[in-house]
């Protein structure tokens, strides 16, 4: 297997750089039994995943299966992945202390312009990124213990770090597409983003995202589907019986959200990307009827920025700066959510029709 030089020449390593190189060398040991490669094609760019063994293959690629392509050439980004339980190889011991673990999973003192270092305590996973060489590392304690919610949005920090260097931005929101483009539903957890997206599944609208997606800025705002997954709470499943046959994790619904792998259950409903036409803020207002009303660009920026910022490590000022021209250039609306979910799709289809005729692709 060809690997990049472990110690490029130049000034002394920063702590983050030295730790990355140590982890890269550890992957060599973990993968002695063989490397399994998979390529993803996302926004026209190839991402190479190199697994040490097969334990992480399904947990980390099930939600990305719609992006898999035959391996070819070099990846724009290469990710090395392994777990301790199946390989017997742990990540190098952390050189930092317990106080270095911060609330957004960033390791204090180990994040620079080029390097990112995070550890997610809930999933026991270490994610490293070298922006200069476009290489990343994913390590977790036990592939068999990755929670369903993490399998539904795998590698999102790595994809976030990669995309920000490619004039794109991972954004937190649900996305629905029609023939005329797509709408991005933004807002905090519980606002109604996912339930709106899934309520529209039986309609002519197609699904791009219910959680994280990739926003490309040029030549026009465009959303790319990253995860072919949707998640809603048990109460929403009760209100939308068409979802029940598609639930992938029946045994835990109630204490966890119901998870739907749409690539497997409803591939005809997925769309790879679409031109972004509007930003819509769902708002559970009570009552039966739903309606759209204008909202300020500031409100849309705040809604989209706040959840994107909080949920992605090392997201900083650039989130605001990058989203600003997008919200300025697009219509921003509030969706007053009523209980009659059948009204939602016609409202959004009508909105997309009124905003243009550029085809979704």
């Amino acid at each position, binding site marked *: 297997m060809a690997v990049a030089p472990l110690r490029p020449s130049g000034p002394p390593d920063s702590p983050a750089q030295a730790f990355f190189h140590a982890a890269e060398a550890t992957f060599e040991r973990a993968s002695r039994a063989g490397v399994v490669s998979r390529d993803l094609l996302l926004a026209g760019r190839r991402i190479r995943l190199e697994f040490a063994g097969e334990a992480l293959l399904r947990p980390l690629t099930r939600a990305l299966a719609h992006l898999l392509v035959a391996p070819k050439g070099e990846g724009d980004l290469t990710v090395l992945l392994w777990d*301790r339980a199946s390989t017997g190889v*742990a*990540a190098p*011991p*952390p050189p930092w202390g*317990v106080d270095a*673990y911060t*609330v*957004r*999973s960033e390791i204090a003192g180990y994040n620079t312009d080029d390097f990112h270092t995070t*550890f*997610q*305590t*809930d999933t*026991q996973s*270490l994610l490293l990124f070298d922006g200069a060489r476009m290489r990343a590392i994913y390590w977790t*304690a036990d592939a068999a*213990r990755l929670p369903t919610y993490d399998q539904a949005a795998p590698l999102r920090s790595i994809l976030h770090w990669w995309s920000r260097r490619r004039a794109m931005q991972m954004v*937190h929101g649900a996305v629905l597409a029609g023939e005329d483009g797509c709408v991005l539903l933004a807002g*905090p*957890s*519980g606002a109604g983003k996912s339930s709106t997206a899934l309520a529209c599944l039986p309609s002519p609208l197609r699904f791009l995202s219910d959680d994280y997606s990739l926003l490309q800025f040029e030549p026009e705002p465009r959303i790319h589907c990253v995860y072919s997954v949707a998640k809603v709470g048990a109460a929403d499943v009760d209100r939308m019986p068409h979802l029940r046959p598609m639930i992938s994790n029946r045994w835990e619904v109630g204490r966890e959200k119901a998870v739907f792998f749409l690539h497997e259950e409803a591939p005809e409903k997925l769309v790879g990307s679409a031109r972004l036409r509007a930003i819509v803020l769902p708002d559970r207002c009570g009552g039966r009827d739903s309606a759209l009303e204008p909202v*300020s*660009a*500031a*409100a849309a*920026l*705040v*809604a989209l*920025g*706040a*959840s994107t*910022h*909080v*949920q992605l490590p090392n*997201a*900083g*000022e650039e989130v*605001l700066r990058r989203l*600003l021209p997008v*919200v*300025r250039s697009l219509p921003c609306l509030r969706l007053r959510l009523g209980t009659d979910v059948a009204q939602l799709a016609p409202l959004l289809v009508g909105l997309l029709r009124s905003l243009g005729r550029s085809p979704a692709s």
Partner: protein
Amino acid sequence: MAEPERFRINRPDVIHEILDGELVIVNLRNGAYYSLDPVGTVVWQEVERGSSEAEIVAEMLACFEGDAAVIEEGARSLLAELRREDLVTAAEGAPVADGRLPRDGRTAFAPPRLQKYTDMQELLLLDPIHEIDESGWPSRGT
């Protein structure tokens, strides 16, 4: 006589942008986003100039029509809230910036509203560090 207390925006942790007269403020330290209406934006711009509380109140009275006591209370309350949220802090010896933008006459006053918007639910789900395993990594515990 002591110099009046002046204020400054808590840079570099706090950044802001104006969209159609409405202010968006971000505290990069905790990811909290805020929106501030056009009335409150005047207070923010005065903070940015390095004005004292008395100067901020005077500018508000010059900009808006209404009961002077209500306008003064609105300005002082917002300033206190901005300080509580750590968006604004006391400035030491900061000079007052020159000039202000020309006003389009006085407009009706409405108490300014700072709306906070944060999505902390996901973060609250994160486990604290319970224990470290033999390899040095945090473990889930039992």
